[in-house]
């Protein structure tokens, strides 16, 4: 059983960063982050990272991806509004999502990164995505991973 002091420590988490790729897991993660932020009177920033292949320069114009990113962020804002909360959304371009997420958390001095992950078994076994692995390994702040429930018949 967690001690009460530990639960109180959770309430010190005021600034939360939620990476969103538009997946159901990322919306779940956002909802959980908002619940925590409401209790701690904190704030939530959602980032969507556009991964730019090396064949293009980092600042290349990525119209389609940018539009999709804006749509995801708008969806996130709608979800927040439904929960009676206001979030900040940001679109980033980077070579790898993991790096961008950690850099953003460091720059903004975030208390926690809340990241969602699907339950996928691409090669017959559950695998944590490269991005989640990178964030777990390199983020200086707390990292909460929200994993979707396993669906029966999947895999």
């Amino acid at each position: 059983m967690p001690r009460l002091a530990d639960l109180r420590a959770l309430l010190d988490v005021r600034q939360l960063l939620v990476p969103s790729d538009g997946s159901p897991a990322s919306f779940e993660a956002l909802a959980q982050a908002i619940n925590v932020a409401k209790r701690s009177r904190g704030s939530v920033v959602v980032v969507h990272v556009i991964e730019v292949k090396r064949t293009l320069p980092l600042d290349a114009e990525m119209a389609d991806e940018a539009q999709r990113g804006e749509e995801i962020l708008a969806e996130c804002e709608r979800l927040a509004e439904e929960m009676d909360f206001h979030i900040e959304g940001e679109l980033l371009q980077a070579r790898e999502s993991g790096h961008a997420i950690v850099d953003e958390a460091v720059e903004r001095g975030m208390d926690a990164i809340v990241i969602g992950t699907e339950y996928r078994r691409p090669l017959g076994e559950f695998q944590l995505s490269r991005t989640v692995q990178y964030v777990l390994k390199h983020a200086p702040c707390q990292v909460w991973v929200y994993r979707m429930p396993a669906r029966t018949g999947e895999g």
Partner: protein
Amino acid sequence: MYIIVVGGGKVGFYLAKELLDEGHEVLVIEKDEHSPRSTFIAEELGDVVLKGDGCEAATLEAAGTGRADMLIAVTGDDEDNLVACQVARARFRVPKTMARINNPKNELIFRKLGIDVTVSATSAILNQIEQELPTHRLVPLLHLRGRAGLEMVEVRIPAGSRIIGKEASDVLLPQGAMITLIVDADGNPHLPAGYSVHAEDVVIAVSRVDAEEQLRRALTER
């Protein structure tokens, strides 16, 4: 400029760091993602490491070599550096390719194939040393412990040496020097007795330090 560095060793790391400081876009390609070195580069320099074989077209494709202004190959293997540069030139039309050469003897072939060469540190140092040394030099191998002033040395027999054709055990040597072993051009060892000396043989001798110059002359002069 977009500059690709193949090889994430010490040279690759410092090179990448310099280039980044100068404001270039840099990518380091390293075969072993989990090598302590490439982890170190990723941690020190950020998102500039790509795992892969820099000689393989698929890796270079993913690296965006087609838009690179320059590729610099600095692995510890000259053959890998050569191929990385050739693939970059022939397949991806990279305007400038440069290679670090580890063995100075390879400078000519790189230049003949149109690859700029950064003269390796080894070669620069050797050039410096060679000017200080007599033409057919005597290489000290080890000091014999507990025997003050006694050394084991190695001498390559130049074509034209007066001892060629002579039996090694019959060669007139200064006092305090002794031939212990001869290694022929094929790498086979021979004892001095009954073995006649050829050009390019390597003679291993034990000598007093003060007799070394005489020994060198006895073995190499015409």
